[in-house]
């Protein structure tokens, strides 16, 4: 008998898909059994852009390398601003080494810089380093704050958006908080309705104690950005219902629509004045795992606590002391995130070029992908204002499978095409008599555009497979081939697409995308 008891937990659809992806990867590595159309599983379900081939920002990696191996700072390997930044950061570490322990809330120097960054971002609104805590990724920060919220009597609960970040329900489970989903209105650009918040909180009070409301802005996975009015509505609601605000603002620097502005919850709160600005309690979160830096493997983020008393600050420190410490390499990357190279700095040109190029590719990929999904039969996809996910809705005729249609579809996509996407099941009331529906979550940060079109073509093939299985005539499909911005001339679609799919070949000169739709069986011209 085991001293450690076994417990069973229902795996979420995402977890089931990941397990399957791992099994298939293992089989491929061992060269086992089933022959497949692919030799590698492509995971586009999480926000890991480096795994998709996006390169790290040079300045960040140079500074970290310099801090790791300071001998590099003596020679010509690095530009002067890298050298001085690394030296400054090292001087803040005990023994001048990033191998030393830091305070569990993070290096004071970095916390100071985060405070300056926040103040600058929010038009000069003061931010204090004592209210800023560096955590091992934003999730750990969120868990720490949620742990504190659980301390009160009664069954604590949190209002969460629907759809929510895919890791959120597991976090709530671990901490012991009841989730109370409030639906976002897709038809209104995924907006938040006061009436819906009211409905949720009123029904919840019968069986639990709502303590907080979780917001994702910019939205994960929907990509929507709240207007100032919407933010004010939420703040008023939180004030009236005595709720703590938990605001995930991780994609704040990944804005896809020209002239679209992001305004932080803190700024809106402070600018609302009395009686809200010093009453409503809030924590906002940011991390390295964002759309530009994508340094998920470095594990660092920060949180800012607003309008909380000394006791809560102290308690947060205590909780963090007993939690996983943030690796110093991550804290350094955070410092660069909040204080990047400025015009005139030696690294500025390269830095800004890398950031702009990344954003421009992301914008272009996103809009193509949204249009493409909308053209696929069964799919609808809202436009995306920020972040790195598209969140298309798929409606399929009822299946005879005992599994959910969504899981069935995604498992098929994984087994047949080797693509792992994220899955969000719809509520029962969303299905119709004849169709069931669900949402897919797909990361669209591929820089290598041949991969993008290959991914999307795989989705078509999957649809075709489903269509054949259900005796549904396939619709005309188009594959959009995106031309890398820097290249001119013809590009050819890789002819590995299933021959029965109707293929459009796109010819283009630099920056011009045109769609031609002949019926072609195969394309092989070079």
């Amino acid at each position, binding site marked *: 008998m*085991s001293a450690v008891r076994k417990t069973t937990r229902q795996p979420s659809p995402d*977890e089931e898909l990941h397990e399957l992806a791992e099994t298939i990867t293992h089989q491929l590595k061992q060269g086992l059994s089933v022959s497949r159309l692919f030799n590698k599983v492509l995971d586009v379900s999480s926000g890991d852009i480096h795994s998709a081939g996006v390169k790290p920002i040079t300045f960040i990696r140079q500074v970290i390398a310099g801090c790791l191996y300071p001998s590099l700072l003596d020679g010509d390997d690095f530009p002067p601003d890298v050298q001085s930044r690394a030296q400054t950061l090292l001087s803040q570490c005990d023994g001048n080494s990033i*191998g*030393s322990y830091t305070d569990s809330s993070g290096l004071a120097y970095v916390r100071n810089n985060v405070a300056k960054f926040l103040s600058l971002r929010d038009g000069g609104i003061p931010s204090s380093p004592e209210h800023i805590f560096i955590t091992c990724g934003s999730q750990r920060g969120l868990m720490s704050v949620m742990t504190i919220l659980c301390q009160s009597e009664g069954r604590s609960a949190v209002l969460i958006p629907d759809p929510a970040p895919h890791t959120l329900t597991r976090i709530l489970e671990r901490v012991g908080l009841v989730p109370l989903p409030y639906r976002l209105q897709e038809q209104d650009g995924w907006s938040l309705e006061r009436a819906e918040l009211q409905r949720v909180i009123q029904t919840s009070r019968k069986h639990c104690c709502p303590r907080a409301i979780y917001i994702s802005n910019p939205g994960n996975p929907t990509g929507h950005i709240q207007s100032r009015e919407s933010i004010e509505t939420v703040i008023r609601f939180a004030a009236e219902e005595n709720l703590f605000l938990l605001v995930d603002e991780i994609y704040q620097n990944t804005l896809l629509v020209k002239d679209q502005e992001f305004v932080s919850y803190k700024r809106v709160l402070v600018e609302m004045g009395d009686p809200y600005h010093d009453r409503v309690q809030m924590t906002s979160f940011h991390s390295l795992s964002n759309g530009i830096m994508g340094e998920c493997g470095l594990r660092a983020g920060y949180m800012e606590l607003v309008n909380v008393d000394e006791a809560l600050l102290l308690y947060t420190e205590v909780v963090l002391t007993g939690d996983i*410490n943030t690796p110093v390499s991550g804290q350094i990357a955070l410092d660069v995130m909040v204080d990047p190279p400025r015009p005139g700095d030696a690294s500025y040109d390269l830095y800004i070029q890398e950031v702009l190029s990344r954003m421009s590719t992301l914008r272009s990929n996103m809009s193509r992908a949204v249009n493409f999904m909308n053209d696929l039969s069964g799919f609808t996809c809202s436009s995306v204002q920020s972040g790195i996910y598209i969140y298309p809705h798929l409606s399929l005729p009822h299946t005879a499978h005992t599994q959910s249609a969504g899981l069935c579809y995604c498992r098929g996509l994984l087994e047949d095409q080797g693509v792992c996407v994220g899955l969000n099941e719809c509520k029962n009331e969303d299905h119709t008599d004849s169709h069931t529906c669900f949402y897919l979550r797909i990361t669209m940060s591929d820089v290598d555009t041949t991969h993008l079109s290959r991914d999307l073509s795989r989705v078509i093939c999957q649809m075709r497979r489903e269509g054949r299985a259900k005796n549904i005539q396939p619709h005309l499909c188009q594959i959009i081939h995106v031309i890398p911005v820097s290249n001119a001339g013809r590009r050819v679609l890789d002819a590995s697409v299933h021959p029965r799919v109707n293929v459009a070949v796109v010819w283009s000169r630099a920056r011009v995308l045109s769609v031609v739709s002949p019926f072609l069986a195969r394309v092989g011209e070079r």
Partner: protein
Amino acid sequence: MSFLRETSLVTKNAFLSEKDVLLRRAAQITAEIQQGERKGYKEVLDLSSGDLHSGGIKPITFVRQVLAACFYPALLQDDSLPLDVTQRANSLLKECAGGSVGSYTDSSGMAKIKHCVSQFISRRDGGVPSSPENIFLTSGSQQALMIMLKLLFQNEDSCQTGVLIPVPSYPFFNVAAVSQGVVMQPYRLCEELGWTLQVEELRRALREGKRTCNPMALYICNPGNPTGHVQSRESIEEVIEFAAEERLLLLVDEVYQNCIYGEGTEYYSYKKVLSEMDSTISSAVEMASFNSASKGFMGECGLRGGYMELVNFDPAVLDYIHKLFNTESCTVVAGQIALDLMADPPKPGDPSFLIFSEEVESIKKMIRKNSHRTQKVLDELPGISCQPLKGGFFVFPRLHFPQKAIKCAKDREMEPDMLYCLHLLEETGLHVRPGCEYGQKTDTYHIRLCLATREEIMEDVLQRLKTFHMLFLKEFS
């Protein structure tokens, strides 16, 4: 409005109180010195934590070269780095998705590194097999300990789970246990016999524990923190037999396994000893052992690299643990890489071997010398006694206070060893930790000093301590 209606008092008070006072005062004094205030000393000497690099020791060159190249692969293109560094960096980057240390890895750690760690363990134990399936990479050993505690808590009994914990012990574990809702049941280490583990004491603690909770695990720290004790083979066998009898899960913290310096002291890993015992025991006793890159010659506390190896766990439980890991992101890649380098360092013939072995040898020699020197100085002082030091980073001498000192402390509402530490800090700038933070037998008092610092600093420390101690005894005699 405040959300703190019922906070866990133990967590809030116990951990911060002592550390905070000393830490704050140490920071204040440093600031005062910087502003030109005159004291009897030029700077505060911090021996309060087991942080090798903060003690002025340089990191291992090979480790930092490989890490720098992994973070900034452009460095691999010129010839400035030794061949074995570039080869290692290339082979690690190949295993990273997108060739970047910024990508997520498998949640329990990169397969290549787990494999490397399993081979390291097997080599260490003279060929006892070790499988990567049983190895999980974590953010330092701290995270691994927290996960095991969390697992122990995962049952629906109305009775709380308990863990037997040594006194004195490493405070983080106590805090983690409390925060995971696990009850601590202390067992005393026997100071008079060199801080050994006595099985009768384990039995007593277990009996005691059964009255208030459901003790399910036994936590051991070998080499000991703060005691510096290294268990003999017989002692380990006794403990394993006890765990087998009482069906306890063994949680064995072996982070100081690379730091053994006692004359004639041999280190045995729990796994090796277990494997050589009777098959009814070797295949039955469940065990989790922990190690990290934060201690020993690596000293890379800030990189956060640790692992745990699970032995004799039910496959269903292992499966559950994998699933638990899957619900969270992997541990930081830099830390995982540090583990690879710790488990598979340069070998004779490799270009980096000479420098590497010199650096490691110099650290080991330094700690050995510091331990000898410290014992010698302490032996000559009245009112301080010290058990023989065998391994680890710390010395935990006992202070024999005159009655007047004890009374003075009581009047100021603090523990006598805390009073001693505060005075020590004020008057000599030496920052050490009081024994009350680690747990000690009633009416005994200790301090803990770190030995992992440069020899000249250690000498300075010992002189300051000696001077202060004599004055303290005089003042309170």
